[in-house]
């Protein structure tokens, strides 16, 4: 068995213009392919895992990302100095920045991603919407600003289909907004909305769009090479969100049938081809209760949640990004893409779900990542690591695979139980509640899931857990007393630098 040509390493050396778990993820793919890696880091990240894992590492400035990870000039300088042949941007930071893609072309370095033109086309909401309409991809139907005296109001609403949403053009925060479910309500609702808009924003312009009830966030992974081939690799459902940030993702969606998958897969490929897309990308849709789909946007980069697609398709998306960037054609057709089983991802974040998902940065005093069958942890931290204040507080992405959705959930619940991160408050307890919540188990998901089930983000006392806590604290207290009695005074150092102090200000709430 000699090396298959597709596995010839596409580059000798790649620079990863990112940090955290995604930099580690890309480094892992590179090392598996025998590619040498160059990390960049800000002053806050000298001790980060991506710096430890990479072959080379270069400082690019102070902690604020505007002075480091967003500095195209510094990154290009490191790329040239280290002899990197390609730059992988990860997600966030410069990953959807056409200027970096252009700078790469000028420097003769390959940017791992689509063309600057594709990024610009999809980056502008209006341009993207128009391109999709032209390509035959459905968008949320809507109107331009409405004339309240127009006679065709009802016709337009019927064209869009009830329920419709009236929205203030200048609006925000629900002001000047009305859901209209029936024809007869339309005229009075428009008057109310316009009145409210005038009172709130001094502008009574209102427009109408389709109201999508209990929408699901469903997105399609696409992968296109530079030879005209574009595949869709199943969908992901990412409906569990807070403030429009995804918390839990899965592949496949519990509601998407094979026929529906083929339909939205074709739409996603159409969307990608409309902008001559190359590389891995994601087309995001809103899915209505009735199975209707509406294009939201296309992310022209790797997504945070790409692992669930990898687990179910068996394809390594980062390796394929690198191969496609090097001009290697895809080695399979759409018919060769098969989905096996089910995968779920929980984002493990240093934040407190019971306090409005407030970030809780700090130092990890002890870490045990779960493992065993069907468990993958894509992390970027270690015991002793301080989660810095300057960036996204995501610690890792915990992914489980099961032969079906139920087993994936069971494994996620088990893996979350095994996960131990001491010294920080994390989203683990939130995820545990979700995995055991009947609506989640039933797959009854929509983007308002957390608002519908507020018990998931409430702190609760549990007498049994309190009992255990008293026993444990009593044991520790007793041992300390014993030690104090036998140790010299100068050695009483335990408890210094403890996370306890962080609670000092809040004190006892009850």
């Amino acid at each position, binding site marked *: 068995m000699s090396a298959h040509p597709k596995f010839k390493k596409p580059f000798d050396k790649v620079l990863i213009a990112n940090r955290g778990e995604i930099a580690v993820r890309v480094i892992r793919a590179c090392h598996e392919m025998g590619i040498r890696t160059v990390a960049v880091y800000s002053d806050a990240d000298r001790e980060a895992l991506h710096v430890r894992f990479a072959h080379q590492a270069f400082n690019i400035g102070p902690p604020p990302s505007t002075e480091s990870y967003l500095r195209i000039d510094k990154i290009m300088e490191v790329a040239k100095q280290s002899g990197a042949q390609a730059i992988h941007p990860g997600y966030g930071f410069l990953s959807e920045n056409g200027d970096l893609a252009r700078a790469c072309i000028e420097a003769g370095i390959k940017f791992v991603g689509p063309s600057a033109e594709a990024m610009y086309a999809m980056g502008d909401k209006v341009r993207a919407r128009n391109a999709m309409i032209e390509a035959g991809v459905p968008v949320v139907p809507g109107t331009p600003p409405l004339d309240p005296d127009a006679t065709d109001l009802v016709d337009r609403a019927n064209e869009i289909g009830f329920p419709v949403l009236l929205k203030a053009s200048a609006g925000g925060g629900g002001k000047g907004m009305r859901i209209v479910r029936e024809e007869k309500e339309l005229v009075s609702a428009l008057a109310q909305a316009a009145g409210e808009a005038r009172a709130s924003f001094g502008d009574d312009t209102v427009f109408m769009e389709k109201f999508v009830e209990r929408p699901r966030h469903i997105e399609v992974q696409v992968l296109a090479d530079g030879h005209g081939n574009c595949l869709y690799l199943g969908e992901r459902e990412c409906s569990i969100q807070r403030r429009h940030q995804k918390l839990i993702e899965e592949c496949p969606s519990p509601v998407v049938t094979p026929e529906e998958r083929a339909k939205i897969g074709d739409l996603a490929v159409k969307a990608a081809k409309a902008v001559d897309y190359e590389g891995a990308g994601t087309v995001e849709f809103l899915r209505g209760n009735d199975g209707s789909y509406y294009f939201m946007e296309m992310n022209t980069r790797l997504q945070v949640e790409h692992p669930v697609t990898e687990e179910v398709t068996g394809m390594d998306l980062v390796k394929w990004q690198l191969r496609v960037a090097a001009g290697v054609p895809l080695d399979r057709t759409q018919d060769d893409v098969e989905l096996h089983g089910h995968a779920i991802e929980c984002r493990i974040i240093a934040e407190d779900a019971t306090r409005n998902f407030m970030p809780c940065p700090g130092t990890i005093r002890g870490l045990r990542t779960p493992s065993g069958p069907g468990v993958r942890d894509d992390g970027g931290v270690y015991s002793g690591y301080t989660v810095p*204040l300057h960036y996204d507080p995501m610690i890792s992405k915990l992914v489980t695979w099961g032969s079906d959705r139920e087993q994936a959930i069971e494994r996620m619940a088990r893996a979350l139980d095994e996960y131990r991160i001491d010294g920080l408050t994390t989203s683990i307890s939130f995820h545990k509640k979700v995995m055991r919540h009947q609506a989640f188990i039933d797959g009854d998901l929509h983007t308002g899931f957390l608002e519908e089930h507020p018990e998931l983000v409430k702190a609760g006392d549990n007498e049994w857990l309190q009992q255990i*806590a*008293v026993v*444990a604290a009593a*044991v520790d207290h007793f041992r300390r007393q014993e030690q104090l009695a036998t140790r010299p005074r100068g050695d009483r150092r335990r*408890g210094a630098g403890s*996370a306890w102090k962080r609670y*000092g200000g809040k004190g*006892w*709430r009850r």
Partner: protein
Amino acid sequence: MKISAQVGDKLAEVSVSRDDGLLIVTIDGVEHRVDARKLEGDFYSMLVDGTSYEVSVEGNGDKYLVRHGADEQKVTFTDPGRQARAAAGGGAGPAEILSVMPGKVVRVLVNEGDAVEEGQGLLVVEAMKMENEIEAPKAGTVKSVHVEPGTTVDNDALLLVIE
């Protein structure tokens, strides 16, 4: 060791003694045989009457933060004598409000001398691009305010005092 423990809104009488390598922990008269081993970091493996628990315990003085899985409980011990004295004094010393994280003060919602209720918002600190409201841990009067909008604060910085 005999002591009172507070957890959540509950109080319990606790005593601990040694018995042949085990610890006997009695909570409100119920005896538990505990085989506790301190392992890596703050982790303990405890067998309580044969049931296995993994917990981590961070202690500071009489205050303990206990983590069991992802659950967190705070336990405070007081010796009965001290508690009695505290009760006689009203149990209501001043509360120092410290910053929970490094960040920047964006709004101060109260002034010196204001009466505040438990849970009332005192000020708003921005950290990691998010605004976080800091609430009063107890009812009282604002004795002093130590920051103003724009102040950059470190972890544990003194923000204000309620009395």
